[in-house]
C-alpha cells in the first residue's frame, strides 16, 4: 500500500457577503458540507487544520458549532496561501502516518475595500501615496507593467483575462458574481491602478471551503476510493531573494519555485495538466502565471491567452470557476476552494463548466509576504 493521500470529501459555500456571520460559522457550514460529501461525521476526523487571516482560534470555535471532539486543532495563517497551507499540513500529517483522516478548512470574513498592508517599515507616518503605493492593486499593476516592460504585453490583453474569467463564472453557481463583462466594459470601468480597472480586480467577499483528506488504506477500507482525488504533489515555497523583491514584491519567482517542486514531486510536466485554477487576484497576474507555471514559453503569456488555449473548450482551461475575479477572494478559503474546483472536474461532477476528460489538475495560490502553494491533483 502506498502512502498516497486522497481527498474524499470537499465542498465550499457560495461566496458572498454575510454581514451577520462569523468566520467560524462559515467554516462550520463548509466542514459539514465536506463531511456530507463523503458520508462521514465530525467524530471521524482525527485532526484539523483551520486557515484564516483575520479570525483567531477559528478551528476550535468552529467545533463549538458542530461538536467538540477534543482532536488536535491547528490554526493556520499564511496570507492568500492560508487555505492551501492548511490543506498541505493535513496532507503532511497523513503522509507521516500519524493519522488516517484529517480535515482542512479555510474561512474568511473580509472587510470592504482595498487591503492595506500594515505599516511594517518603521516609518514615522503612513507612507501610502507618499513613498509610492503598496496596496494590492498597485503591487499587481506593477507585476503587469513589468511584463509589459519585458514582453510588450498590452492593457487590452490584461483586460481579456477578466473578459474570459467573468464569462466562465456564468457557469458557476457558487461564484459571487456570475456576470459576463465584454472587453470594452472591462477596459472602460474605473481605472484603479494602471493597467488595472475595477473589473480587473478580485472582490473582497466572505467564504469558506473544507476538505476531508484520507490515507489510501483508509479510503479503500471505507469504500471512498472511487470518488476520491489523489494528491499527486503538494509544494509550498517562500520568496527566495530576488533583486527588487524587498520594494517590489516578486510573486513570479516564488511561484516558479513552488511549481517546479510540485512537478518534480509528481513526476509530471506542465503539458500533462488538463486544467488549472491559478491565483488571478488581479487580471495582470494570470498572464504572468501562465509562464510561471510553465504553461507556455517565457514572454508568451499574452499570446497564450489570445490563442484561446486557456478558455473553457481550449487546450488548457484556466480558472473555469470564474477565478478569484468572479468567485471572490476570501483569503483563508481561497486555497481550498481552488482545490474543490479541480476536484469537481476530476470527478466529472462540474456540471455545465466540466472540462471533458480531465485527469490532472493544478491549483496555485500566492500570498504576499510571500507564500506560494501549488498542488497537483489526479483522478483516483
Amino acid at each position, binding site marked *: 500500500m502506498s502512502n498516497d493521500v486522497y481527498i474524499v470529501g470537499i465542498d465550499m459555500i457560495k461566496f458572498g457577503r454575510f454581514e451577520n456571520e462569523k468566520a467560524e460559522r462559515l467554516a462550520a457550514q463548509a466542514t459539514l458540507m465536506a463531511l456530507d460529501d463523503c458520508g462521514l461525521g465530525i467524530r471521524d476526523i482525527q485532526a484539523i487544520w483551520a486557515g484564516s487571516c483575520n479570525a483567531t482560534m477559528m478551528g476550535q470555535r468552529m467545533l463549538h458549532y458542530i461538536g467538540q471532539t477534543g482532536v488536535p486543532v491547528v490554526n493556520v495563517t499564511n496570507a492568500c496561501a492560508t487555505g492551501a497551507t492548511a490543506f498541505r499540513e493535513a496532507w503532511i500529517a497523513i503522509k507521516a502516518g500519524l493519522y488516517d483522516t484529517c480535515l482542512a478548512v479555510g474561512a474568511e470574513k473580509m472587510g470592504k475595500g482595498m487591503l492595506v498592508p500594515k505599516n511594517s517599515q518603521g516609518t514615522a507616518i503612513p507612507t*501610502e*501615496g*507618499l513613498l509610492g503605493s503598496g496596496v494590492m492593486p498597485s503591487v499587481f499593476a*506593477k507585476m503587469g507593467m513589468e511584463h509589459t*516592460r519585458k514582453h510588450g504585453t498590452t492593457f487590452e490583453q490584461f483586460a481579456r483575462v477578466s473578459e474570459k474569467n467573468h464569462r466562465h463564472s456564468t457557469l458557476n453557481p457558487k461564484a459571487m458574481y456570475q456576470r459576463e463583462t465584454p472587453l470594452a466594459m472591462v477596459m472602460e470601468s474605473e481605472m484603479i491602478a494602471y493597467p488595472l480597472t475595477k473589473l480587473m480586480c478580485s472582490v473582497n467577499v466572505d467564504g469558506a471551503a473544507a476538505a476531508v483528506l484520507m490515507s489510501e488504506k483508509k479510503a479503500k477500507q471505507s469504500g471512498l476510493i472511487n470518488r476520491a482525488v489523489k494528491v499527486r504533489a503538494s509544494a509550498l515555497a517562500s520568496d527566495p531573494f530576488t533583486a527588487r523583491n524587498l*520594494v517590489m514584491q516578486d510573486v513570479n519567482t516564488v511561484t516558479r519555485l513552488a511549481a517546479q517542486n510540485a512537478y518534480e514531486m509528481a513526476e509530471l510536466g506542465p503539458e500533462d495538466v488538463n486544467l488549472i485554477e491559478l491565483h488571478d487576484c488581479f487580471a495582470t497576474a494570470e498572464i504572468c502565471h501562465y509562464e510561471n507555471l510553465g504553461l507556455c514559453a517565457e514572454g508568451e503569456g499574452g499570446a497564450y491567452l489570445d490563442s484561446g488555449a486557456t478558455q473553457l473548450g481550449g487546450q488548457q482551461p484556466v480558472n473555469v470557476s470564474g477565478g478569484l475575479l468572479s468567485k471572490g477572494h476570501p483569503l483563508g478559503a481561497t486555497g481550498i476552494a481552488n482545490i474543490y474546483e479541480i476536484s469537481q472536474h476530476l470527478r466529472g461532477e462540474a456540471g455545465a463548466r466540466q472540462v471533458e476528460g480531465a485527469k490532472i489538475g493544478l491549483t496555485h495560490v500566492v500570498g504576499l509576504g510571500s507564500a506560494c502553494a501549488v498542488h497537483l491533483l489526479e483522478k483516483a
Partner: protein
Amino acid sequence: MADQPVAPHTVISTGGEPYLVGSHCSACGETHLGAFENCPACTARGQMDEVRLSNQGTLYNYTIVYRSLPGVTVPFISAVVDLDGGGTIRGNLLEVEPDPSKIAFDMPVKVVFRSAADAVAGGEGYLAHFFVPAN
C-alpha cells in the same frame, strides 16, 4: 526645526543634506536599501557595510494610481527606481504627466527630498524622497 525623515533609510548629514542609506554585502556584493545586519541575498552574517546610495537612477517600473486612501492626492505615479551603483527604491515620480505614453521605462531620474505635505494630508514636518526626471 527641520523636517524629519519619514523613512529610516533617509539620513540627514551634519551639514543638513538628506541622502539615502543602504547596506552593501561584502560577501556577495549585493546592495540593499536600508539597514541590514545579515544578508537576505546570500545569508552572510555580519558582513554588511552601511553605504550612501546614489541620488541618480533609472525607472525600472511604475503604475499610475487613481484610487487610493483618503487624504492621498491622486492620480500619482508609484515608481520603482534602480539607483546607479546599487539599491532599488520605491517612491512617487513627480513632474511627469500621469499618462503611460509620457512615461518611459529606463528613463533617468533624480532623487529629491521634499515635504511629505506635498503628497499626503498630515505630512507637515516630515521629509520624503521623490523622483523627478533627470533631464
